[in-house]
């Protein structure tokens, strides 16, 4: 019976543990400090410092001749990003793609989430949650390349829809939107599903009981109550699309989004300060969006 812990042998370390526990039990501040030190160090040290470094490096410049970074602070990069027509065009294009992806994802996610939360049997619901989560386990790159082959000339899409006179849109913005809408869909479905799951079934019954047909029940009860969750979902699809540069490289043809500009400036152009300045655009847009939706309670649904 060697596997049975021997109480007399276990006693010393157990007693020490107990002493330590009772020492902590009366010192809530110390307890909190021990609990939060590691995550706070990571959050402040890595995340916030990196963000601050990004902001600061956007104020630097690169000597175009030597390629050396000049660390004197100037607003030139920010001015260029705000005034140059190229950046404005790419920003608007990125915004358009992010908005289109978000609209498509919400339109797809709403009925799926409603079905999962309020119609499906518990068994089917579990199966659907797994089905929604499964694509997240596959590599992002694999999915993007799968869409590349799907959308290619003579690819699966052409082969299936060709007989109906519909052709693959080919590589371009439409392909980017389709691919991104596919990739980010689970991130939109899950919060909306969770939000609708929190709406008690009796509310839907009450609406029907008081004379509202299904469509009216959904419009007057389900959607208003699920709105914060829907917005939570849009925060995901919108921000993830805004920052993407891989999909657009794979299926986007010659189009560029903000992510590409950052990427080329870090790499080929070797202009880290300008890349930092460009990277601030989506950050500012997302901060604006978050500030806008803060009042709806969406941030409590993330």
């Amino acid at each position: 019976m060697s596997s049975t812990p021997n109480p007399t042998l276990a006693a010393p370390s157990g007693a020490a543990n107990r002493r330590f526990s009772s020492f902590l039990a009366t010192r809530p501040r110390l307890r909190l400090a021990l609990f939060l030190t590691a995550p706070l160090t990571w959050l402040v040290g890595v995340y916030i410092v990196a963000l601050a470094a990004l902001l600061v490096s956007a104020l630097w410049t690169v000597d175009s001749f030597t390629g050396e970074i000049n660390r004197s602070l100037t607003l030139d990069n920010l001015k260029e990003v705000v005034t140059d027509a190229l950046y404005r065009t790419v920003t608007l294009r990125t915004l358009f793609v992010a908005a289109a992806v978000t609209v498509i994802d919400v339109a797809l996610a709403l009925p799926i989430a409603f079905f999962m939360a309020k119609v499906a049997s518990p068994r089917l619901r579990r199966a659907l949650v797994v089905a929604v989560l499964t694509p997240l386990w596959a590599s992002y790159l694999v999915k993007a390349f799968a869409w590349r082959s799907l959308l290619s000339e003579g690819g699966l899409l052409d082969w299936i829809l060709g007989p109906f006179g519909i052709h693959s849109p080919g590589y371009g913005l439409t392909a980017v939107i389709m691919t991104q809408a596919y990739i980010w869909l689970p991130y939109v479905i899950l919060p909306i599903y969770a939000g609708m799951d929190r709406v008690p079934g009796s509310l839907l019954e009450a609406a029907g009981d008081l004379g509202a047909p299904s469509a009216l029940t959904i419009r007057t009860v389900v959607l208003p109550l699920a709105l914060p969750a829907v917005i939570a979902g849009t925060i995901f699809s919108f921000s993830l699309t805004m920052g993407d540069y891989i999909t657009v490289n794979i299926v986007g043809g010659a189009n560029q989004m903000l992510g590409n500009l950052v990427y080329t400036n870090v790499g080929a152009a070797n202009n880290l300060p300008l890349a930092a300045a460009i990277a601030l655009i989506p950050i500012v847009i997302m901060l604006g969006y978050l500030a806008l939706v803060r009042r709806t309670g969406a941030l409590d649904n993330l």
Partner: protein
Amino acid sequence: MTAANTAIRLLDVHRHFGEVRAVDGVDLEIADGEFFSMLGPSGSGKTTVLRLIAGFEQPTSGTIELAGKDITGTAPFERDVNTVFQDYALFPHMNVLDNVAYGLRVRGVKKTARRQQAMDALAMVRLEHVADRKPAQLSGGQRQRVALARSIVVRPKVLLLDEPLGALDLKLREQMQVELKQLQRDLGITFVFVTHDQEEALTLSDRIAVFSEGRIVQLGSPSEVYEQPVNEYVASFVGTSNLFDAEAARAVLGAEGRFALRPEKIHLVAPSASAGGPQAKGKVAETIYLGVGRRVVVDLEAGPQLVVLEPSTTEAAVKRGDAVLATWRTEDLVRLT
């Protein structure tokens, strides 16, 4: 009872969930303007019957009629029946007035008219002053009354109430019982009331259906159900009863069959007193003070225990260990089937 004054009629209604027969052949007629209670423990099928009438469930077989019209298979929003839910089911994103006006809004009533009617309904439950609040800002009793107002504002033929007082504390529950009864009299709407609280059912109802395992075991006025329970189940579920099985009946009563005897029908006298009629000698095993009276447990010489409810006015209270003679009237003894 003719079709003209029948509000609800259930004909051989079944509702099975897989193997479970939640409702197993219920026939029922509820008259117009009646306060009808469905009483039973959880899982007895009473709530399922309510949900079948409301249309949230469809019967496996059988028909449901509302005012003589077959409504089996119609959707809840097509039925002139409203429900007060156990959890009240108030819409959290609307204020009290919009909640109450919801039924009018989906019927297309104009805004000013529906606000007026909703305020009138709120006035009936004396809650005009909370019209602008959200349900989360109300107390349990207030939410209950808002749910009530929301259901009666559309003037349904029948109001279904699913354990509406279950979540309230005792004092509030008693107060709401009075209000419910008054409201029902004033409106003249048929109330179908589901409860597991036998006292509530006895207090409020014109008639009571006692449910067990998906069937109605007894249907009658409160006094019928209380005074003449048809079987052991009803006798013990509605109030408390001293039950005599065949053996105990032979030993104590000297009679064949099974019987029930209510605790308050038994009187305790000194063993020396000469009393006519049925009686049994025993010894007091326990006395419990209840405020309105005293519950006395007597060990009978013949074997079984007897629970007796003595009014608190009895001057000489019996004590533990006292020898007593329990007496009752023959007509208070109920023969069970």
